[in-house]
């Protein structure tokens, strides 16, 4: 066994692979999102069987969630875990299988979704052979991570690792339970669950996919990379403990808030509302821990694009985790459900919190992975401002549009008859669909700026530079 201070060869090859694939899938996924947004505003933009909204939309969500977000999570966790454990990943072979297996899954997802092979369950659209492949690659990732933890040379596991462990365990459970289906042919299956019960299982999955793909692993990134970038320990270790356990305990109960006023038993809906409201506390605990870690470094936030992205990311995390619980209240949900308000909420979380935190993580890692400096800090700052503008241009019209729809659907004349036909609500929101498409285009152009910056950084750097790094005590541990 090697002793303290010895040189450890971290495996950064897998991190580089995931960083690049995530960036590419991010651009693909957001381009497809933009196409979907354009199709809603201009239906002529739909084309034939392969490229109409119904097939494009699941491709968008799969590419941005599984290709982009999870790609950054794989990259960030492989980067962070090796350093926090001060040991190379358990198995290079498993790392390669993880990288190539996962990207093969995303390619097959893109092809099969465009071909119309879908189960229709949101965020679980992929058909059974791909579901099995996902389970296999996920288990590979799990073995690789747990194997590394078992061999680690740093006794204490830092909070970021807890969030990644929670992701691995919970997603495995959710994916396996929700994907139970009886195959009819090699690309068609029927759910083992039917009707109300199917809805119950699906939204238990769907909500916790948000919780354990778009929240916990992103918190893991925030916990590792934010303290690194400000160069000070996380503000409070005790807060990390409290908010980690309360977050994962409470999250899993909140799924029924997607099924309010549905035929689902009332008591489950009540649980969904109650636990959603409780969720504010642990969510804000995480946000505060992030913000307070930046305390004293605010002057740097003005110049450092990475810190700016973390700061706006945390702000939107705080906003969407306040908005979500409000939308889980029955009376609010009766207005917001089925409307663009949900889409506004989704993207304030997805663009504001998830994408910005992922961008920040990539900007932190990429120069280090290629042993160089970021090609242009100014371009990264430009990206930050473009992204923030695009995000506001996306989210604000969706909120207005959602409330407009909700109010029009329930408006009645003095005699009690409905005030508007459905199609009137469609034309009323068209202008917001147009603005959202512009916002999406702006946000996407920011991603292209990043892509250029990353390519130039990689070109001036080198992957082959000597990789050994002195196993220093992780600066992120500790705190009060």
């Amino acid at each position, binding site marked *: 066994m090697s002793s303290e201070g010895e040189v450890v060869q971290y495996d950064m090859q897998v991190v580089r692979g995931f960083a690049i694939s995530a960036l590419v899938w991010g651009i693909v996924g957001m381009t497809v999102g933009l196409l979907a947004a354009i199709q809603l505003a201009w239906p002529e933009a739909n084309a034939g069987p392969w490229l109409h909204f*119904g097939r494009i939309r699941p491709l968008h969500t799969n590419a941005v969630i599984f290709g982009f977000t999870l790609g950054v999570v794989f990259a960030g966790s492989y980067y962070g875990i090796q350093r926090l454990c001060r040991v190379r990943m358990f198995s290079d072979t498993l790392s390669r299988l993880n990288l190539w297996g996962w990207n093969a899954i995303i390619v097959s997802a893109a092809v099969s979704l465009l071909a119309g092979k879908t189960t229709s369950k949101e965020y679980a659209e992929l058909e059974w052979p791909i579901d099995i492949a996902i389970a296999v690659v996920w288990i590979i990732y799990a073995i690789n991570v747990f194997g590394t933890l078992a061999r680690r040379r740093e006794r204490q596991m830092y909070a970021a690792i807890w969030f990644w462990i929670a992701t691995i365990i919970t997603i495995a459970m959710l994916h396996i339970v929700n994907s139970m289906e009886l195959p009819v042919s090699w690309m068609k299956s029927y759910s083992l669950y039917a009707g109300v019960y199917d809805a119950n299982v699906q939204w238990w999955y769907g909500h916790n996919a948000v919780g354990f793909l778009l929240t916990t692993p992103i918190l893991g990134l925030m916990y590792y990379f934010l303290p690194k970038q400000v160069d000070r320990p996380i503000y409070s270790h005790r807060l990390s403990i409290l908010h980690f356990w309360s977050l994962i305990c409470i999250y899993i109960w909140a799924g029924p808030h997607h099924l309010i006023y549905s035929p689902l038993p009332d008591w489950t809906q009540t649980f969904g509302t109650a636990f959603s409201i409780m969720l504010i506390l642990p969510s804000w605990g995480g946000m505060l821990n992030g913000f307070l870690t930046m305390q004293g470094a605010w002057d740097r936030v003005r110049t450092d694009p990475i810190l700016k992205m973390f700061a706006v990311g945390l702000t939107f995390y705080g906003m969407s985790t306040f908005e979500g619980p409000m939308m889980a209240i029955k009376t609010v949900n009766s207005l917001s459900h089925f409307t663009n308000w949900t889409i506004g909420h989704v993207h304030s979380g997805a663009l504001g919190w998830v994408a910005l935190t992922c961008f920040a993580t990539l900007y932190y890692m990429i120069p280090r992975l290629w042993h160089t400096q970021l090609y242009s800090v100014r371009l990264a700052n430009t990206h930050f401002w473009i992204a923030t503008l695009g995000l506001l241009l996306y989210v604000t019209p969706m909120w207005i549009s959602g409330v407009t729809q909700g109010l029009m659907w329930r408006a009645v004349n003095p005699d009690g008859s409905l005030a508007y036909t459905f199609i009137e609500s469609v034309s009323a929101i068209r202008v917001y669909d147009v603005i959202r498409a512009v916002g999406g285009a702006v946000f996407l152009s920011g991603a292209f700026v990043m892509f250029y910056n990353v390519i130039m950084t990689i070109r001036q750097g080198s992957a082959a530079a000597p990789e050994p790094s002195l196993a220093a005590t992780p600066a992120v541990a500790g705190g009060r």
Partner: protein
Amino acid sequence: MSHEWHRPLENHWIRLSTFTFLAVIVGGVCLLIPPFFLQGTIEPLTNLRPYSSLELEGRDIYIREGCNTCHSQQVRPFKTETDRYGPFSLAGEGIYDRPFLWGSRRTGPDLARVGKKYPDSWHWLHFKNPRDIEPRSNMPEFAFLTETVLDTSLSSAKLSALRMLGHPYTDDEIRNAPGDAERAAGGIAASIRGAGIVLDATEARSEAVAVIAYLQSLGHAVREDDVAMTGTR
């Protein structure tokens, strides 16, 4: 330090992982197990019947094209919703729905009660180009569904898979699934032609016809069930 009590978890990955699993499995068990047993207490509506082979093919095309990404199929119990769409959705309607198709967005109107609301010919023209019927609609055109012959080669396999899951199909229905689908398609084609629309041989056996059969079936159990119609169930 005050958080010393947490050390045993932070220092042992198996312990930490086990507690994490326990934390998430409790909510999972409580939300998934009781409703599973409550399922047995859901009374199917008296008039509910499993989908015919043509309706089932139509439903699978509805899924394939992602119609559910824009159309919900879940009427909520508010007067403004029941006035607009029809009786609110009931638990007993869904026992043959694999998967459920309630949706999460209403880019287009709810379809849970669309059955028999419009004639078959309306749907035909609507697939050809929604804007011929409603210029303000942003629905994609699905003309390609009217030009593709329905593939029934899996129909029997589909019915028998569903029978394994408890849908009451007879041996005859399973064996004759493709033939039944074609006969039923003939009926719908005749009704479209009856409205003065000319269909060629491909169009008369097209995927669009199957989707129309499915759409026309939506809400049938509630429609035919007087008790449910009054909303007292």
